[in-house]
């Protein structure tokens, strides 16, 4: 019998690298030559999901664009911890203007590159969920609607962490923030509010919309690379747990992101021109409690004065995501 190549690689593509894979099948993050777009010495907290997500994403974009990349940054943690005078962590050309205008600034950069005939230079804009779903939303929608040649990446940690953990329109129901305190009969953020930005982005009919988490590096890199192969407005929302805001241990950042996906709370999918074209299936489904309970921002739902009815409502949200996006394998 001729030698059959084995498709099974011990850890497959779950780990960052894998010595058993062909080098060109390995992740960008496994490469000794990755660009480290955001360098050591930045001032992000220990275990920062955003610092990690940003390096994952921008390194992938750098790889896909052969280093021909300009990054635009909204105000926020990422900006503050990466560029306090006199040191910058960025190794890519980078500009920060304001909290709410990163998509528009990126439009301007892209326009400049186009007018100068430098189509090889690609533009990425990035911001947190506050800068994206709230204050920058108008500019973002405008950039989408014009189908400007910009990849916008939202690092979603579900609140305004830089200013001390205030609610954003990406904050999940029941979550404790400094402006949705765990007091009163329905503690934490209210149910029935908030914005589903990936779906709003899809409604613009832009070429590409995707969600990803820092727990699924390969998927994240695949999506960034895929987005970078396209032109026009593209949007990727990356779930990046914040140890400070979530009230989680610094070593739990990736685990929490994994649980967000595995519980169905954060559906991971991609869509082209407004149509869902792929979902990252749940691999080992977990109940919502397993996701919520390690996070202090949900601590008021458990313990002595527990709110099982609110946990049930959160489970219902996760279940709806699972149904809506088909997150479970058919035979599960």
């Amino acid at each position, binding site marked *: 019998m001729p030698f059959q190549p084995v498709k099974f690689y*011990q850890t497959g593509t779950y780990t960052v690298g894998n010595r058993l894979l062909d080098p060109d099948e390995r992740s960008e993050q*496994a490469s*000794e030559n990755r660009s480290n777009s955001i360098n050591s010495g930045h001032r992000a907290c220990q*275990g920062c999901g955003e610092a990690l997500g940003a390096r994952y994403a921008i390194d992938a974009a750098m790889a896909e664009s052969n280093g021909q990349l300009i990054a635009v940054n909204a105000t926020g943690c990422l900006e503050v911890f990466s560029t306090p*005078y006199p040191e910058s962590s960025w*190794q890519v050309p980078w500009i920060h203007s304001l909290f709410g205008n990163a998509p528009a600034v990126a439009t301007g950069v892209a326009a400049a590159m186009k007018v100068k005939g430098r189509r090889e230079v690609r533009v990425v804009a990035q911001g947190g969920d506050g800068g994206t779903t709230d204050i920058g939303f108008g500019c973002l929608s405008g950039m989408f609607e014009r189908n400007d040649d910009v990849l916008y990446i939202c690092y979603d940690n579900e609140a305004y962490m830089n200013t001390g953990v205030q609610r954003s329109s990406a904050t999940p129901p029941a979550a404790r923030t400094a402006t949705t305190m765990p007091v009163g009969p329905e503690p934490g953020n209210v149910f029935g509010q908030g914005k589903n930005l990936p779906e709003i982005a899809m409604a613009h009919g832009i070429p590409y919309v995707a969600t990803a988490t820092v727990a699924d590096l390969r998927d994240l890199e695949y999506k960034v690379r895929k987005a970078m192969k396209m032109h026009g407005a593209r949007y990727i929302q990356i779930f990046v747990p914040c140890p400070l805001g979530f009230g989680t241990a610094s070593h739990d950042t*990736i685990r929490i992101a994994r649980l967000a996906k595995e519980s169905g709370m954060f559906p991971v999918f991609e869509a082209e021109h407004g149509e869902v074209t792929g979902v990252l299936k749940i691999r080992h489904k977990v109940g919502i409690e397993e996701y919520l309970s390690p996070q202090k921002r949900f601590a008021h739902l458990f313990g002595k004065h527990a709110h099982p009815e609110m946990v049930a409502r959160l489970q219902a949200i996760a279940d709806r995501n699972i149904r809506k996006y088909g997150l479970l394998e058919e035979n599960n």
Partner: protein
Amino acid sequence: MANKPFAITLKPGTSLANLTGTWRTARPVYLDRLPPCNNACPAGENIQGWLFHAESGDYELAWRVLVENNPLPAVMGRVCYHPCETACNRGQLDEAVGINSVERFLGDEAIKRGWKFDAPAAASGKKVLVVGAGPSGLSAAYHLARMGHQVEIQEAGPLAGGMMRFGIPKYRLPREVLDAEVQRILDLGVTLKFDTKVASIEQSMKQGGFDAAFLAVGAHIGKRTYIPAGDATKIVDAVSVLRSMEGEDKPMLGRKVVVYGGGNTAIDVARTAKRLGATEAIIVYRRTREKMPAHDFEVEEALQEGVMIKWLSTIKQAGEGEITVEKMALDEKGYPQPTGEFETLAADSVVLALGQDVDLSLLEGVAGLEIKDGTVQVAPNMMTGHPGIFAGGDMVPSERTVTVAIGHGKKAARNIDAWLHGVECQSTPKHEIATFDKLNPWYYSDADKTVRPMLDIIRRQTSFDEVQGGLDETNALFEARRCLSCGNCFECDNCYGVCPDNAVIKLGPGKRFEFNYDYCKGCGLCVAECPCGSIKMVAEDI
């Protein structure tokens, strides 16, 4: 940058000036933890170590790492009861890695490809006598030879292998496999003398000018028990039956064979009887299946082949063509107690498989030796009470398996070597064990164990062809890659990838990683996301 706007515009990557390592209260450190398989291996194999190379398809290197500890992988891959697989962390995930099947594949591959051992070290000028060519003796001879010592094995019988040949049936261990692996050891320059029974060890040593001796004569004397029996009843012991299978005259057991005992030997004999044409092979055992010392998979295979087992029964009497058994019941402590209920079974012969005793005659008169419960007592370094005489295998107190014997051989060889050099053998302290809770199993691909092919049932009942097949290269590779590499970095790059501070330095293939403590903030993500548990946090002195 000098002419760029002041303060607003910064040079790229300049945050390197900010040494965030000062934030740290605990630091990650790389370590090798002991994989449970390695820990459980009686032969002291570096299982994770050789699987690592098998995973990348470098079977020869895998084999070479394997035989550093065990020269008989093809035998091992067939007869070892693989405690490694019982200990394997993957068992808590789906099923244990088929370590034994990969080992057999490597062993068979080595025979097929004609791989030879690395040449011995420079000759030491020392001579060592090994008594007995069983697994323990062969193992010791192999290791001693590779250390550069001149080794002579003196074997009482006509063939090498000891219990591997005379105790384990062919359908479990084809003899050409055994012969090939023995020959490879002899090719190292080991002298093997057959039909050389050592009557007195001291004399033999003196005659041959040996500097040290390793005794590994095994336990070949079948234990008997008193069963009132008439003259017509054929009562034989299992060891004799199995030994005679190797000779010209096959044992005559009749059509109805009763085997008395509950160990693996009982199973082997019953299955052998079946193959020799017995219509009924019945094992009589005094306790229950759960309490049976034989390995469950062997019991299962025996049952598949039509062997019957009479549980909770003892033989009270053997008569003409039949035996009487008494039913037993387990008491509160789990010990069988007679019930007074009797029953008769047809039996042309009764085979006693009640364990074996050691022939200790060669040790008579040797000063300092301590014999207890029919076995030779040895120190932790395998040396008997007599300096320079070491012992191992079934003749010393231990579990009597091929694998344990091979382990004894290795251990004895190391200690003999040290003793010959006038030093103490320094064994490195064991690393802490990589228990399942140290792992992050998320990262491993889902994969069920590969099922080894089994011979069809008719041929199993009628021939001595090997029952269990081996893996081919494809599924051996698959099986090897199921290894979780517990406690040992396999360069998955997770630490390098998940560090938010780029504080892990990748040193290149085979060189693993290093922490850059200038920037490591001590978040512990690398520890949490290391699949195999080979990083731990250590508190900083602050």
